[in-house]
């Protein structure tokens, strides 16, 4: 065996080694800790994705997280047990921040999963072996945690001249690799030979510092025995000879070009720990679940090396090695040169943890205050990367990042040699780290702002294109319009006819533009008003309020104009537009009022005793109500409008829905506030009020949908189906909400608030379902009614088919309700009663549908004879449906009151309310029955 040549590198330091103390004791193995915390990001690259769920049982060696992309790794259970949690825990990171971890509660059996070694690794393709290594979670164990399969893959880019095994372990204190070589010499050599086979390397050199004579001797002996071609290069002890780049320079006299990898010059470097892990993975199928770690430092009474399971909390190891807490001043993961301090010993051991240094104040005294840099150049003499640290410090301090980069800041390996020798105690490495991060951030934000700019410009271009298209279409229409009269009438009149609408159009346009401007102004004013309110500038508020009012007046005037302008045009299409414009205005008012109200309420929450604010809130509420009323009226008018106002109607419904959403969002907000401040009567009152508003909105919506349904009956199926879809969406929404709350409830079963919410959501769900059912009925009717009297037989069969489908749906609803009931029973929910009722109702509905079908088939025969009766029947059904909704609502009210009564059994008011509600409900039910009877009689 020839001795390989050893070269040298620039700089380097000789800190006290302190390696002896952890080698006095043999390798230890701590017992199982109470829990194992496995961070998902133990390696460079994307964090792994968990494969397990909380509560599931895992065996030792079972994969619990899978790689997430190319540069990522697997993670395995270090022992058997149950997944206790997947949550944020403090991880071993200089920031002391938390990250997602899988927490395993060991069951103490330490039961292995069946291991599958890769016996025929010499025969299978190398890609398969690499994939196998990836599945076993093997990453570089030297420091960075670079996924091994990626590194080995990279080695195929260029023919390998050197395969270097890094056993230098140059950091003071750390002896984990030393111990590993002593304990697992054979495994190491076999592992090296496996990797050598994988990467086709001829020239394999183990680089080891001369301060590990025992390890060197055992290596050399084994290599002699096996007649292996592996060489052992003993390098002089100098920090940082274990740095990858420095070791390469030491052993090959080559330098890794800046910004490239060793693989680019045909060199592969692997840590000894990685070789052993790879060997154990291939030979025994053992994934990476434990590692050698040095426990050292003056605060330990029994410093030693341990083979420790990944995820073991460091506090457990501290206890194991007999920590003297009084002496502990600094807890470092890694060595004293490049390790990082831990805020808490609760952080776990990860794949790259080679040392836990529990240092006393005497050992690692707190750093002296930073003095001025005198450019003494000691750092330059020590820098192993050949940088000018003092210049880099100057540029980092003055944020001259461009210059820092020019002075090769990114070639700094952060080894800390410069800080070590600095006579002025300047934390040079921290300056460099900060500067590097700033430069990276700046680059990232530059990229981001570039993207934003591109997207902004693309959007602008798109909008312009759309506008141009619209304009072109408008022109085309105009041309067509003017061309028609020109074709019909004598040419003389044509020029007269054309300008008239154009003028009118111009007027309208101008008015619209004015309106837009005025609105923008209003928005601005309101914004400043809000600001003023926030800053409590009373004078400004008044002035601004006046301005706002004026602007609003202007706007309404302008809107009138805009509405009037199209009326004035000879074309008489105007009325629906005008109507909807007005409605829109009303809507805007409503929105404004409600937003104002919201703002005031928000302020009110901050400052509940402010009488002025309360008054204001009341005023705004009144405004809102009047606006709402106006809107309702308009909606009514729209309905009454002679034009076929389907659009208006559906808009109305939409509006109602928006109102509903608004009301519910408000309600939710108040409830949230209420949750924070349970005793606030005012809030409760408000919540009740909002609930009422919500109910109103819902009713209105139901009415609207009813109207739209009736409108649709005459002509429009799509609208109907729209409504139907909406109702369905509502049901789905309500369902998800309910589920969410139930989940929360599962986590926190004592929370009465949540329970209340659950009940409420269930109610909402029920209502939505009722609505859906209600919609289903008219949809069927409308479908029945639409196809006129012509193709009776076809229509009838169509209707029948539809009816059947509806029945199926209804039956499904029944089933669903029953399922919900079963669930509720298992959960012992208070809601069982209502659910039972619901089931009954759904059944009734299904029955009624069946009845209808029978009727339908009967009436199908009579329908062609008398279409008038059919119309009447439709009207009747409409009424029936409405009645159903009302009954459902009444019932909901009863249910709600009952529940409240359960909570507060002594409330007389509630009892009274309940009685009246029950009465109302009975009355409605009676009406409904009557209606149903009439229909059936018919």
């Amino acid at each position, binding site marked *: 065996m020839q001795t390989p040549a050893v070269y040298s*590198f*620039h700089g380097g330091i000789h*800190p*006290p080694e302190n390696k002896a103390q952890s080698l006095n004791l043999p390798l230890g193995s701590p017992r199982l800790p109470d829990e194992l915390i496995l961070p998902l990001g133990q390696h460079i690259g994307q964090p792994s994705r968990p494969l397990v769920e909380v509560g599931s049982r895992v065996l030792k060696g079972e994969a619990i997280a899978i790689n997430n992309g190319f540069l990522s790794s697997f993670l395995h259970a270090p022992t058997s047990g149950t997944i206790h949690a997947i949550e944020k825990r403090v991880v071993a990171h*200089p920031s002391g921040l938390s990250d997602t971890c899988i927490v395993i509660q060991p069951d103490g059996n330490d039961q292995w999963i069946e291991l599958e070694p890769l016996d025929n690794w010499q025969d299978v393709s190398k890609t398969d072996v690499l994939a196998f290594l990836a599945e076993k979670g093997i990453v570089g164990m030297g420091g960075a945690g670079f996924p091994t399969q990626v590194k080995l893959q990279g080695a195929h880019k260029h023919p390998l001249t050197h395969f270097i095994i890094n056993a230098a372990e140059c950091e*003071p204190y750390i002896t984990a690799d030393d111990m590993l070589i002593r304990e697992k010499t054979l495994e190491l050599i076999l592992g090296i030979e496996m990797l050598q086979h994988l990467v086709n390397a001829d020239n394999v050199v183990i680089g080891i510092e001369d301060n590990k004579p025992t390890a060197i001797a055992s290596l050399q002996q084994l290599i002699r025995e096996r007649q292996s071609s592996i060489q052992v290069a003993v390098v002089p002890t100098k920090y940082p000879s274990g740095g990858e*780049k420095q070791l390469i*320079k030491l052993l090959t006299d080559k*330098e890794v*070009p*800046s*910004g*490239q990898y060793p693989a680019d010059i045909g060199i592969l470097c692997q840590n000894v720990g990685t070789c052993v892990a790879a060997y154990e993975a291939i030979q025994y199928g053992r994934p990476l679940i434990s590692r050698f770690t040095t426990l050292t430092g003056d605060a330990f009474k029994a410093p030693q090396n341990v083979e420790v399971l990944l995820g073991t909390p460091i506090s457990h190891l501290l206890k194991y090695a007999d920590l003297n807490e009084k002496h*502990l*001043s*600094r*807890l*470092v993961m890694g060595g*004293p*040169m*490049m*390790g*990082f*301090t*831990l*805020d808490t010993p609760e952080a776990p051991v990860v794949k790259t943890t080679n040392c836990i240094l529990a240092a006393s104040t005497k050992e*690692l005294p*707190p*750093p002296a*205050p930073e*003095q*001025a*840099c*005198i*450019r*003494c*150049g000691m750092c*330059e*003499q020590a820098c192993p*990367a*050949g*940088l*000018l640290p003092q*210049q880099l410090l100057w540029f980092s301090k003055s944020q001259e990042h*461009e*210059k820092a*980069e*020019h*002075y*090769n800041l990114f*070639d700094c390996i952060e080894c800390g040699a410069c*800080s*070590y020798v*600095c*006579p*002025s*105690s300047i*934390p040079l*490495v*921290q300056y460099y780290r900060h500067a590097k991060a700033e430069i990276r951030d700046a680059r990232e934000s530059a990229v981001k702002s570039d993207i934003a700019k591109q997207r902004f410009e693309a959007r602008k271009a798109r909008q312009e294109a759309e506008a141009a298209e619209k304009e072109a279409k408008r022109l085309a229409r105009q041309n067509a319009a003017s061309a028609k009269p020109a074709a019909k009438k004598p040419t003389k009149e044509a020029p007269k006819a054309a300008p008239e609408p154009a003028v009118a159009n111009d007027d309208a346009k101008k008015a619209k533009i004015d309106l837009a401007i005025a609105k923008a102004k209003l928005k601005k004013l309101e914004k400043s008003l809000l600001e003023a309110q926030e800053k409590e500038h009373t004078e400004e508020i008044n002035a601004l309020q006046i301005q706002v009012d004026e602007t609003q007046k202007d706007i309404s005037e302008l809107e009138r104009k805009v509405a009037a302008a199209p009326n004035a045009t000879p074309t008489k299409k105007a009325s629906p537009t005008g109507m909807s414009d007005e409605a829109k205005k009303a809507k805007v008012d409503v929105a404004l009022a409600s937003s104002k109200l919201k703002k005031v309420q928000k302020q009110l929450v901050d400052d509940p005793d402010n009488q002025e604010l309360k008054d204001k809130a009341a005023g705004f509420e009144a405004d809102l109500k009047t606006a709402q009323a106006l809107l309702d009226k308009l909606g009514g008018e729209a309905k009454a409008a002679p034009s076929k106002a389907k659009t208006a109607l559906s808009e109305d419904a939409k509006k109602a829905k928006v109102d509903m959403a608004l009301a519910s969002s408000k309600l939710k907000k108040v409830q949230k506030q209420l949750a924070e401040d349970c005793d606030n009567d005012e809030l409760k009152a408000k919540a009740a009020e909002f609930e009422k508003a919500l109910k109103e909105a819902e009713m209105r919506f139901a009415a609207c949908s009813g109207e739209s349904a009736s409108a649709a009956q005459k002509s429009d199926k799509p609208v109907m189906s729209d409504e139907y879809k909406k109702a369905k969406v509502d049901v789905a929404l309500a369902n998800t909400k309910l589920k969410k709350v139930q989940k929360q409830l599962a986590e926190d079963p004592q929370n009465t608030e949540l329970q209340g919410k659950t009940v409420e959501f269930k109610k909402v769900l029920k209502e939505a379902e009722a609505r859906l059912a209600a919609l289903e009925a008219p949809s069927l009717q409308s479908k029945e009614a639409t196809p006129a009297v012509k193709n009776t037989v076809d229509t009838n069969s169509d209707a029948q088919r539809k009816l059947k489908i509806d029945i199926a749906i209804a039956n499904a609803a029944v089933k669903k309700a029953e399922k919900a009931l079963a669930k509720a029973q298992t959960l012992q929910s208070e809601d069982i009663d209502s659910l039972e009722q619901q089931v009954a109702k759904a059944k009734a509905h299904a029955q009624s549908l069946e009845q209808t079908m029978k009727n339908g088939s009967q009436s199908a025969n009579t329908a062609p004879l008398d279409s008038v009766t059919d119309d009447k029947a439709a009207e009747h059904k409409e009424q029936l449906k409405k009645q159903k909704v009302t009954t459902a609502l009444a019932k909901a009210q009863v249910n709600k009151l009952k529940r409240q009564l359960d909570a507060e059994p002594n409330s007389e008011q509630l009892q009274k309310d309940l009685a009246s509600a029950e009465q109302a409900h009975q009355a409605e039910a009676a009406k409904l029955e009557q209606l149903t009877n009439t229909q059936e009689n018919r």
Partner: protein
Amino acid sequence: MALLRITSPHTHRAGRRTSWVMQMVILATLPGLLVQTWLFGYGTLINLFIACATALISEAFILKLRRRPIGFFLADYSALLTAVLLALALPPTVPWWLTVTAVAFSVIFAKQVYGGLGNNPFNPAMVGYAICLVSFPVPMTQWIGASELIQAGATPTFSDSLAAIFGTLPTVDSYTMATPLDAFKHKDGLMSSEAFSSILGLQSANLSSWMWVNVAYLLGGLALIWLRIITWHTPISMLAALAVMAGVFYAIDPSNAATPVFHLTTGAAMLGAFFIATDPVSSCTSNRGKLFYGAGIGILIYVIRSWGGYPDGVAFAVLLMNFAAPLIDYYTQPRTYGHKKAKKGLAGGDK
């Protein structure tokens, strides 16, 4: 148990603080100080005390004005080092107010006004020296002669030195004479050999006392190199350049030029090489840069001595090269690991 969050590295070389570096440099001047005192009387020592007091007071004053922690900055010994170097460079008979002016100027204007330690572009001691040399040339060029050659026949006593410094000694002229460099500069057309035989300041007694002074500084400087406080690059290249210049011109014209040995052993050659030019703050940083920087100083010293208006040129040569130091730094960056070539200039300049 309070755990600290500190960036790595967590361990630091014990003992080697900036104040220790400054102390060692001050200690390394001891041989020179002793020899000067022995040969030229107590004037240097008295100057030293005046200079140190002035430096501390002015530094504290300006730190107070700048609202900086006084104790923290005084403890770095940098002001004291400036004072010591100035005191050694000033003639032993110089009036007290001149010492005070020089030191105060160097501490306040050459150092603190630029931002304190580490931020001064020029060597503070040499700025103070040059200001006084330009403003008060007569007292700045009077120096005690070797005891055999002067009228008094012996080095001045402590009381005489004190009296000379405080301006109460009428017989000060009996102690002083031209330094060898001064004498050689004013040989007025005499051949070199004639000058060495006829001019009082160039007698071997005077030459040997200056040689001893320089040898003492050389010893101190070697100690600094051995302690790795300074590197060999600046002093060796400076002395080599001075010797080469002297050698070349001596070879060309031996009748008018002095030998390289004369140049290396007179004036402030060694003090300048090991203590002044190596001031890290105002000199070049990379080893290659230090070679250029030292060589520049050596050449300039010879130029000023031979053709300039002043007998010695260390102060001006160092200040001139301080101007050039950033430029040299830009073009002598070391080659970083992984780069084929060393970078030059600044970002945005020639890339």
